[in-house]
């Protein structure tokens, strides 16, 4: 998105088709967005009309959330859920709030101490609202404590030091690292492993996935991170968006296959490549 924004800002010359910015992939990107929107609209409408939706496949990492909270409850220890980078305009934050609402609600029901470490001051305010709402839904608004949401400035290593320190001191039984992480992923997940916490991570950053996979008990890879809201709520309309996403994946696979064939047949006249660049 930011690349496109930068490219669009620098775009010069004659607009494509008279209305599109002169940026590579502007028209094809628009068509892709329209196709995905129509697909999502179709499946959401189908779900609203009561038509059966396919079930989302089992995601061990999401199923393990209940187990992790149960363990924390038995041990009388807390549950930590954290993200450093995500601000309120970041799609990772919206994914995070899906987890947060579910985990906070369960923690409220089981009277387990829940802690969120936020790295963005705007997100921290929203986190507080999401958690308060979850406590309210669980019928335990009084269980919300002022130290549930802990805002630590999002400077990479300052935040990591603070989070690692909290882990060492408070020894939570479960930790959840949700969203986009950088090099701090290694420190956080290893400290979590040292204190013996059940660890669940979800990220789309392929560079950090190996670290989470090495140190965490469960790792949600790529788009699995975003599926949590739909998976945990089991709401058919949200499931519809996941189905649309999967259909989109099939279309992408077909386009990739066509591109490979076109490249093998005639690299200069690869119509798929030209179409995507338009």
């Amino acid at each position, binding site marked *: 998105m930011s690349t496109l924004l930068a490219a669009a800002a620098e775009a010069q010359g004659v607009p494509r088709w008279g209305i599109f910015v002169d940026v590579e992939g502007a028209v094809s990107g628009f068509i892709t*967005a329209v196709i995905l929107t129509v697909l999502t609209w179709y499946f959401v409408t189908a779900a609203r009309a009561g038509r059966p939706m396919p079930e989302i496949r089992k995601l061990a990492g999401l199923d393990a959330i209940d187990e992790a909270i149960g363990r924390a409850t038995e041990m009388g220890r807390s549950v930590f859920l954290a993200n450093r980078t995500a601000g309120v305009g970041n799609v990772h934050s919206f*994914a995070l*709030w899906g987890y947060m609402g579910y985990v906070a609600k369960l923690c409220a029901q089981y009277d387990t101490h829940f802690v969120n470490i936020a790295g963005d001051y705007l997100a921290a305010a929203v986190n507080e609202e999401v958690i308060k709402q979850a406590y309210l839904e669980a019928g335990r608004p009084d269980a919300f404590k002022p130290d549930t949401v802990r805002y630590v400035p999002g400077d990479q290593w300052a935040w990591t030091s603070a989070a690692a320190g909290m882990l060492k001191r408070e020894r939570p039984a479960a930790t959840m690292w949700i969203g986009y992480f950088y090099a701090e992923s290694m420190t956080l997940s290893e400290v979590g492993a040292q204190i013996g916490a059940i660890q669940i991570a979800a990220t789309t950053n392929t560079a950090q996935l190996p670290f989470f996979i090495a140190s965490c008990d469960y790792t949600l890879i790529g*788009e699995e991170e975003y599926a949590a809201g739909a998976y945990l709520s089991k709401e058919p309309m*949200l499931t519809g968006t996941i189905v649309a996403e999967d259909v989109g994946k099939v279309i992408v696979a077909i386009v990739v296959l066509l591109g490979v064939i076109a490249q093998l047949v005639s690299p200069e006249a690869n119509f798929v490549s030209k179409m995507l660049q338009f």
Partner: protein
Amino acid sequence: MKRQVPIILTTVTAVIVFFSIILFKPDAAGWPGKFDRMRQFMAAVMMFMGMANMTRVHGSVIRKKDRNWMFSVWLLVIMYVYAIFGLIVGNTNTTYRWFYNAFIPPINATMYAMVAFYLTSASFKAFRARTVDAALMMACAVWVMISNVPVGDMLWSSESWLGGMAGVRDWIVSVPNSAVSRGIAVGSFLGGFATQLRIFLGLERRHLGQG
């Protein structure tokens, strides 16, 4: 009404920004810039609210003499002294910048260096070949590691068949590794797009304090 207004605002803003930046001529009517300035203004207001909140939370810790209360005193002193000092002398002042440069980068570098030790302990766990998959991953990792140090070139020179250890390493990194990374990236893009659509359509409402 309380529920609908934020959803309508989100959708309208998203549609305007999407069309005016990504598709039509840049800076059409200047709306993206206007939205960004609104966001910056709100962020500046929130900064003060954040300071007030920190004062409230840590003030309570100090009053109750909770565990590690002295750290709360330290935090509040640093926060206010540095903020007031910056407001008086400006953020280009040499002394103001010296305080930051003399403390923060070295501390950050120290923390970053510690990642090496955590990597070692994580590698120890990751490199236990319990299954065929894990063994394959371990073999690839060991290969890439050895080929990145001079001993790799000594074992199998890059000037020989297949480009030596480095040649095979480059193939591992640029072919199977890239293929998997791109597969994940495509899935992540679609997942992110689906999430954004859920927000635009008002299906994802957690951020509005609704279940």
